[in-house]
Each structure stands twice: as C-alpha cells, then as structure tokens.
C-alpha cells in the first residue's frame, strides 16, 4: 500500500504542501483570509487530487493495485487538523468547523474509492464525468459569471452542475453565500451526491468492462 497507489508520491506531497499554504499565510495574504475558513481552503487540493482519474499505466495495473486512498487520507489529516485549529483559534464557530470536517471525510473517502474503482476498468467514462463535475462546471460557471460582468446569469445547467461540485462546496465553505457552492443542506448534500454518483459510475463501468473481458475470454477457443 502506498500513497503512490492513489495519487503518486509527488502529487501527494504537492497536495500536502498546497493544503498547508493557508495555514502559513502571513501579511496581506493572511488579511485576505480574514473571516474565511482555512480548513475549507486546505481541503481544495485534496478534493481535486484524491479522485484524479487514473492514467494509462495505473489502468494497465488494474486489479493488482491495492486501494490507496487511506494512505492519501493519512497524509491529508495533519495539515487539515492544523487548519481547523487555526480556524478555531481565529474565532470561527466550532459547529461550523465540525460541519465542514463531517462532510469532508466521507467526501474524500468516496472520491478516493471512485478513483480506485476506475483504476479497475472503465476509467475513460469516469475521467469524463470527473472532469465535468469537479474542475469543469465550477470553472465554466466562474468564467461565464466573469464574462457576463453581472449583466447576465450563467446557463442554468452549468450553475446547477457547479453547485453540485465538491470543489464548489469547499469554496462555498470558505467564501460564504453567493458562490456556486454554499453552506446549506443542499450544498453539502449535492457534493456528497456528486461524489456518490462518481463512485457508482466508476464501479458500474469497471464491472461492465470486466464482464466484457470475461465474455471475450470465454469466446476464445
């Protein structure tokens, strides 16, 4: 078992360093974080990277590769704990910090498990869905919102998908209402639902591909 199994050691170290950055912010950078949750910011790189679709080599390794997200989670927990402590020391309410942590943990587990399932087959389909839901929709939503400069609204479908994205949920926890994500039940429910959908899709695609391989093997004389 290794962190490399899920994210690669280099990517895990990069995610670790990025998640530590909000805790180390000082001067004007710290001023810009005033009132926001550092825990939510520290979660962003892990949410983005723990479910990153497997590459060709990982897909070739398939079922031989063990489940690796627990090791990535083990690396994620210390900087997240530090960020949560700083939030509390900075005066953020304990219930808000606990609510963020309570949603983040199953979210990371689901995304990691989805990535693991995708590594066993059907990774292409998972890759497309992940790209749309995680970086795609929130980026498009932000770009459309910026381009309209307040005169129009991004397309309803894009706004809806962006609202479901786990990245939008984490950003909403940092930046508050008015973002694609948010703080209500819909926001965290949508993020968990999106992660669950990704995992279901990956598991279904992997099973379908294994079935297809089995059928081909059965046809051979």
């Amino acid at each position: 078992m290794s962190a490399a199994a899920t994210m690669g050691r280099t990517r895990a170290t990069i995610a670790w360093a990025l998640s530590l950055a909000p805790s180390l912010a000082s001067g004007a950078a710290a001023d810009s974080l005033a009132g926001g949750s550092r825990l939510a910011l520290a979660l962003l790189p892990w949410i983005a990277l723990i479910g990153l679709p497997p590459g060709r080599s990982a897909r070739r390794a398939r079922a031989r590769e063990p489940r690796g997200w627990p090791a990535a989670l083990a690396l994620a927990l210390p900087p997240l704990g530090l960020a949560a402590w700083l939030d509390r020391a900075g005066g953020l309410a304990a219930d808000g910090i606990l609510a963020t942590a309570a949603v983040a943990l199953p979210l990371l587990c689901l995304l990691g498990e989805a990535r693991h399932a995708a590594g066993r087959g059907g990774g292409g389909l998972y890759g497309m869905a992940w790209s749309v839901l995680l970086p795609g929709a929130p980026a498009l939503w932000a770009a459309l919102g910026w381009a309209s400069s307040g005169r129009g609204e991004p397309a309803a479908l894009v706004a809806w998908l962006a609202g479901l994205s786990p990245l939008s949920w984490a950003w909403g926890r940092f930046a508050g209402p008015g973002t694609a994500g948010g703080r209500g039940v819909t926001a965290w429910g949508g993020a968990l639902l999106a992660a669950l959908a990704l995992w279901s899709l990956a598991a279904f695609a992997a099973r379908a591909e294994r079935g297809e391989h089995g059928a081909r093997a059965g046809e051979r004389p």
Partner: protein
Amino acid sequence: MIAAALLVPLLAAEVPAAQDGIRIAELRLTGPLREVTLENAGSWRTRVTCDLAPGEVRTVRVPLATSDAPRDEPELRLLPPDGPGDAVLVALAAGEDPFTWSALPAGLRARSWPPLRPARPRPDAARLALVAGALCLGLALGALGRRRTVALAVGALACAAPFVLPARAPAALALRVHEGDAESGEWLRVDGAREILDLRPGALGWAESLPFARERSFEVTLETGGALRWALSGKGLALYFCEHLSAFESFEPRSNEALALAACWTRDAAGAWTARGAWAVGAPLPPPGAGGGEAPPGWLAAGLPQGVGVLLGRVARDGSEREGGRLGFVRLVGFPEESR
C-alpha cells in the same frame, strides 16, 4: 401643509440614545452560590461569578444596561439553581451618570470606533514540526507496504494534536482614544479590546460591540480576597466602552496640560496636515517639521469635519501608567491654530 403637520410630531419625538448606557444595581448574595445572571431584556446581560460558602453574605454593585431595557426588575437566574443560596436586588439605581449620551456634542458622538483587528493566530514551531513529521512518517509507511491502519492512525493523531498541544495566547490588542471637542470642552475616553475589556468597577459610561450581537455581557467577578472585577465580554466581538471625562486638562498650542505624546499632527482649517513629532507635558506645541514626515494613522484622521483645526496624537509609552498599558491616541477637533 398636511405633510408638515405629520412631520412635526416625528421631529419632536425624542430620539432614543444610540448607545447602551449603564446603571448600577446593588445585589445581595447569599451562599452557597457560584453564579448569578441578570436578564433585563436589554442587549447586554450581567453575569456575576462568585464562590460563596454556605451562609456567606456579600453585597456587590453590578452594571445593568439601560438603553432598551425597561426600568422594571431584571430576572435573576442562580447557579446552582435549586440550592439554598440566594440573590436579592437591593437597589436598582445605586448610581447614575448625570451626563446622557444625547447631551454630548453631535461631532463627538459621530466619531468612528478605533479598529480592533483580531489577533492573527499563527502555527508555532511545534505544530509545524508535527505536521512535517507526519508527512515523512506517512510517506515512509507507504513505502514500507500494506500498513493502511497504522498510517491512518498516525494521520488522525497528528490531526488532533494541534488541539491538544499547549498554545500561547496571542497578544491582546487594546486601544484607548481620548476624543475631544474643543468648542464644548467635552472629552470622551474610549477603551477598546477584543472579546474581553476590563472596566474600572463602578465605571459609568456607554458600551458598544462590533458587530452587534445578542451574546454579550457585563462580567462581574467577586474574587476570593473580596476584590470586584468588571469587564465587557463577547466571543469574537470588538468591545468598546466610553466614559465621559468631566475634568480633563486639554491641549493648547502654548502648553500640553494633558498627556505626553510620542507623535502628533495638526490640521489647519484649510485641511493641510503638519507633522509635529513628540510633545511633552508642559511644553509648547513643537514647530512644523519636527515629525519627520510621518503620517497619522489613517483611521484616526478619517471622517473628521472640515473647516476646523484638528490635533491627532499617539500617546507616549512613558505615559503608559496613565494609559493602563494600552496603545493610546488623542483626537481633538477644534484645536486652535497657533496664529490666534
């Protein structure tokens, strides 16, 4: 005509006081008693913390908010609630400041509150070393093979450790601003601090918090030696307390009779600022240019009326005995120009 007739009663109506004032009540406490809370429908509650032995009786003076609170008796809640201890309100108005908020000059009431940014928490070396160590251990465990449970346990421990390790409290930021109006001769002393602001027991004045919050209180602590401690308290709030200074020696260009200033600035009626440097007690106003071009703090110079002279100052650290160890500032509107 009809509109004017409708407006007259509105204009004549008494404008409510903008600040929460204080009236002092006397409370007789009988032990065993740990805590008494006084709820009087105002926006500040009063909490008295004591540790009275069975049969011990003490009479204490406590502050009550006056702004939106009716003049009836506040509701008392005791801790422990069903014990033999008791608390009785002996007098509801044991002292009142004859000076009301609305009697202050409008310019003085409209001054901006000094900014009190929260002390910025920073991770210390121990916590950073812990997080870095957890990364190395996590990567090493990963390289060793299938040790998922151990790696997760290490991660969870390192996650919880920042909350358990002892933390040094960030330095408390407390400010004191003397706000003066030269025309009326009135002075206010504004003290500010975050989360907890110590008051002089028996102090009469006006309390404010930013932002407004329902969870804010006057804290009265009866210490074991019999000493009484008063404070304003509110989690995450910037707290302010204003006291009217009935006899405060002022600043005149010919002599400083009030406080030693480490740096001061004057503004003439035309709006030109001049840095004057340090101004000792008993000395005349330093000449222009003595300040070396240092600019006054932006918040101190903001929002002041135009067309009148202004004196701004930073109180010298040497004068900290009079300033209670806080950062001190002076803001006087209507400061006479030297030529007069």
